[in-house]
């Protein structure tokens, strides 16, 4: 009994130390942050990096809360991810877009929805290379399986499907001491997708119902190893006849004090989103907090 008690006490004492040592071995910020679709990346687009810090002998993971508040909408995302040996990344994200500004026009159309919401499961595989150590960078491919949780509004605007899968390939490369001795991180992604507004308005539409390839990219600079500033761009399809869908872009600053936490703030421009009420461009602020284990 005394032994048992001692073991428990010892266990409690060592737990915090073990927990902190357990955050993987990859260098700071090499897990990127969590994108709004759950995959490791920037804010809007997946990167070739896998989430967390698991290196080739380790497991790692992340949990993330994000919020974007634009002129007329707000988007909330909760996400979680697991990475095995810096090889496979599994992610989940739940997105909820608040439609307050549209409730009146929607109810006129006989719809009493006040939000759009979907779940996204993502799988990403690192194919080859390392973002820091390979001259040709790191290359990954993945997919995001998305399912609308409420389909009335997407259906009303002529979306063709309540589920859809995006397929993508990404390359990421860090250039050491590229600008004033500071490290530059470049990412490019090509995505095959049918998703309307990332899927929040369903998949495929009256105007187009086939997969199209979209280009996404970002450039960011490490001011120090804790601070990263950058710009991101994401091209979008335009499948729905009721309103034009526009490309997304943002400028962001991320703070990575150590491996356990990161905080990302951004200015986002989502273009015109579901503009049935002349709301104009959706611009605003984005904030995301991520914990890694």
């Amino acid at each position, binding site marked *: 009994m005394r032994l048992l008690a001692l073991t428990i006490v010892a266990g409690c004492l060592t737990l915090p130390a073990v927990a902190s040592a357990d955050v993987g071995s990859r260098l700071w910020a090499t897990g990127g942050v969590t994108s709004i679709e759950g995959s490791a990346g920037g804010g809007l687009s997946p990167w070739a990096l896998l989430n967390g810090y698991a290196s080739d002998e380790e497991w790692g993971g992340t949990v993330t809360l994000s919020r974007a508040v634009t002129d007329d909408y707000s988007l909330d995302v909760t996400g979680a991810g697991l990475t095995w040996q810096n090889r496979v990344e599994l992610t989940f994200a739940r997105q909820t877009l608040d439609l307050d500004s549209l409730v009146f026009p929607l109810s006129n159309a006989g719809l009493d929805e006040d939000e759009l919401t979907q779940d996204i499961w993502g799988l990403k595989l690192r194919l080859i290379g390392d973002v820091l150590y390979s001259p040709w960078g790191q290359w990954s491919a993945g997919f995001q399986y998305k399912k609308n949780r409420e389909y009335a509004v997407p259906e009303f605007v002529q979306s063709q499907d309540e589920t859809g899968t995006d397929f993508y390939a990404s390359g990421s490369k860090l250039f050491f*001491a590229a*600008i004033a001795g500071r490290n530059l991180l470049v990412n490019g992604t090509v995505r095959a997708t049918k998703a309307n507004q990332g899927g929040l308005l369903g998949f495929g539409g009256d105007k187009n119902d086939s997969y199209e390839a979209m280009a996404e990219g970002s450039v960011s600079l490490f001011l120090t190893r804790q601070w990263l500033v950058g710009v991101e761009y994401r091209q979008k399809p335009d499948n729905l006849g009721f309103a034009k869908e526009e490309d997304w872009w943002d400028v962001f600053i991320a703070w990575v004090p150590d491996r356990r936490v990161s905080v990302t703030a951004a200015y986002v421009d989502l273009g015109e989103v579901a503009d049935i009420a002349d709301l104009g461009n959706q611009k605003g602020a984005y904030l995301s907090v991520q914990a890694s284990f």
Partner: protein
Amino acid sequence: MKPINPMTLTLFLLAVLTIGGCQTTNSADPSGNLYEQLGKRSGIADIVEDLLYLIVEDDRINDHFAGIDVKEFHTNLTDQLCNVSGGPCTYTGRNMRESHADMNITDTEFNALAENLILAMEENGVPSSAQNRLIERLVPMYPDIRNL
């Protein structure tokens, strides 16, 4: 919420990048510069000493270092970093593939060592631009050290 003016942000970002750009041209990085920013040979010797303390504490990699000739390792690594950073030193140790091949060094272990080197440079007040430049010159050794 009042949206931030995109112009302000674009200007901010441009400013950040331009300041960066100017500094590049100013410090056009002759190799001697990096060597001096590391504190010359004595500064590098201090960094390697602190690196050794960090290695000994680090359970991810300290096994590999058990029983090595610490003095010789310290001299050789100091000479190598001195030479790589453009200093007047001659490295007399073995080449990187030869000296590391038998250890089957993993990515985890390589990352651990890179982390400790960065922390050792930080402890010695090396500016991050000099840290990055030194690492840029060590990264090509990655395939040799991992024996890929």
